[in-house]
């Protein structure tokens, strides 16, 4: 599904990713750990095609096609979707309109109001300006609503549980499971995912196939998500840095 080869990325002339390789197969979901500033968000925004993130070397293949230089909307149309950690608020653009736009590309029947209800978003809330005055948890749930409408094959989730209250964390987790076909049996899973998580809390609900630790713009370590998370919890990210040296 996703094959990243020797990726080097600069932001405003500063190198952030320094030769990153990563492969996510169809039906797999991977977790991405790393300290603040290690390049996790840079990686997902580069996969999505944000113009600020300049690929100076390497390439990104999606479903076998080189998408390294495609614009964002074409990547979305090919089947890549993203949930942002801090999406911008846009005056006058209604949440419902944006969900409807996303649904146009989703290639599935989609009833915005009904699906919204399942993740605790009221019809009134849908008429609000996108992300304007939304709480942290509301942002995360409305991001997921847009992804459910968009129905992407590769889902990039940047800290999907940060700011979500305890009451809704299970709901958010189950929604992600649905998005990623985790509610289906192994052989029937078609969707792939990449979940950025700093603390790893969401992984109690969303089971991942593999995890990677990002250190200074490179994958420092890959392995079983549970084991890696345990190591990080016990030894801290400092140990990952040392381990790499």
């Amino acid at each position, binding site marked *: 599904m996703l094959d990243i080869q020797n990726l080097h990325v600069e932001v405003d002339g500063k190198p952030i990713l320094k030769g990153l390789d990563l492969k996510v197969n169809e039906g797999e979901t991977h977790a991405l750990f790393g300290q603040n500033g290690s390049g996790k968000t840079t990686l997902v925004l580069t996969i*999505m095609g*944000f*113009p*600020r993130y300049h690929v100076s070397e390497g390439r990104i293949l999606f479903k076998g096609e080189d998408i390294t230089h495609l*614009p*964002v*909307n074409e990547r*979305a*149309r090919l089947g890549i*979707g*993203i949930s*942002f950690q801090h*999406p*911008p608020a*846009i*005056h*006058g*653009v209604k949440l419902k*309109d*944006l969900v409807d*736009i*996303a649904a*146009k*590309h989703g290639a599935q029947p989609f009833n915005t109001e009904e699906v919204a209800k399942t993740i605790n978003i009221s019809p009134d809330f849908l008429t609000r*300006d996108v992300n304007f005055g939304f709480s942290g948890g509301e942002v995360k749930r409305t991001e997921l609503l*847009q992804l459910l409408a*968009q129905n992407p094959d590769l889902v990039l989730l940047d800290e999907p549980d940060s700011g979500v209250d305890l009451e809704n964390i299970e709901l958010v987790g189950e929604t992600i499971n649905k998005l990623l076909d985790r509610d289906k049996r192994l052989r029937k899973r078609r969707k792939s995912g990449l979940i950025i998580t700093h603390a790893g809390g969401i992984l109690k609900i969303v089971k991942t196939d593999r995890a990677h630790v990002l250190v200074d713009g490179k994958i420092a370590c890959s392995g079983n998500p549970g084991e890696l998370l345990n190591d990080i919890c016990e030894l801290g990210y400092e140990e990952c840095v040392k381990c790499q040296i």
Partner: protein
Amino acid sequence: MSNIDELTERAEKARGKKAAFGPDIPLESYTSNAPAHKKILTLKTLPSNYQSQSLGVGIDAKEDERSGSYFQLDTSVVYSKTSAQDVEVLSVTEAFEKYDWLKDYWWKTVAVDADKYTAQAALNFSNGYFIRAKAGTKTILPIQACMFLAQESLSQNVHNIIIAEEGSEMHIISGCRTADELSHGIHVGVSEFFIKEGAKCSFSMIHNWGPEVAVRPRSGIIVEKDATFINNYVCLKPVQSLQMYPTIRCVGENATALSYSLLYATEGSHMDVGARVILEAEQCKADVIARTITNGGEIISRGNLTALHGDVKGHLECRGLMLGDHGRIFAVPELDGAVPDVDMSHEAAVGKIAEEEITYLMTRGLSEDEATSAIVRGFLDIEIKGVPPALQEEMRRAVHTTEGMGL
């Protein structure tokens, strides 16, 4: 000397007087004479191209959901009608024949010698509308008034009087435009509003001029005790030069003035638009909100709140969006507190669309142009308090049907 003679003399003296704002327009290159057009029995008998062009400025020839209509073609009032009881829609000429007291409202809020354009309206008067809601009458369906300019090189010089009597409520949609084929012309419009005690009046003006047309409205509004005046202005189409700066005087206790302007200037357009509110009694309130966009044109967005009395409140907001590499937005918010105990504020911001907003929408599948358009439409989609839903919808339609917006 009679009052009329005195006004004429003052106008004569101001014939060459340049306006305080806006480029000077040589009025000699226009004529104030146009062939008379015949009266019509229904707006549906207007030429079909005029009907469709008027629809773009909120004038519905079918008169659905309208309580009255006025249509002026060049200098001729071809239609005026009202279906609401106790609301009058007449030409000012007819109103003068009917009401002797009308002279008490004539040139009372705008000085006849303010500049060469007010002088032009006085000396080469080409009619205008008289709209009056009698005391206590409440009409929710809007009254529509259209100033249509079709004669080449015409200076259309109108003078309108609007009176909302005590405790009345009315909503006016005023659509002004030029015929598609017209290349050169000027519209000079004096409008005087009298919003009496406890009355509420909204005035929504949608303009659609041509790239070689100059526009010089001159408006004065008096808002009495407990009365509300809502002024909405939409101009999203090319215009050579548009300059207006209406003055709203809140003269009675608890009078409210709200002003909203939506402007979009393409290359070659010059717009100098704003609103001034003078708060003259306690508990008066004012909001002056402007959303301006340049895509190559020049916009001067003015706002002035002047407090002459304590215990008043006002807010100014000028937000400007720069699209493309050319164009200029000059926001001039002014607060003038001449007494203590006033509460006035302003915020002004001019800038381009944040790239992250465009990219965010693109992640949901919109192209860059579609994303820009959605943000631009959203920027102009302000909720106007106090106008009926039909009018709000009309304003929204004007925004959504502006072709090429943001592209």
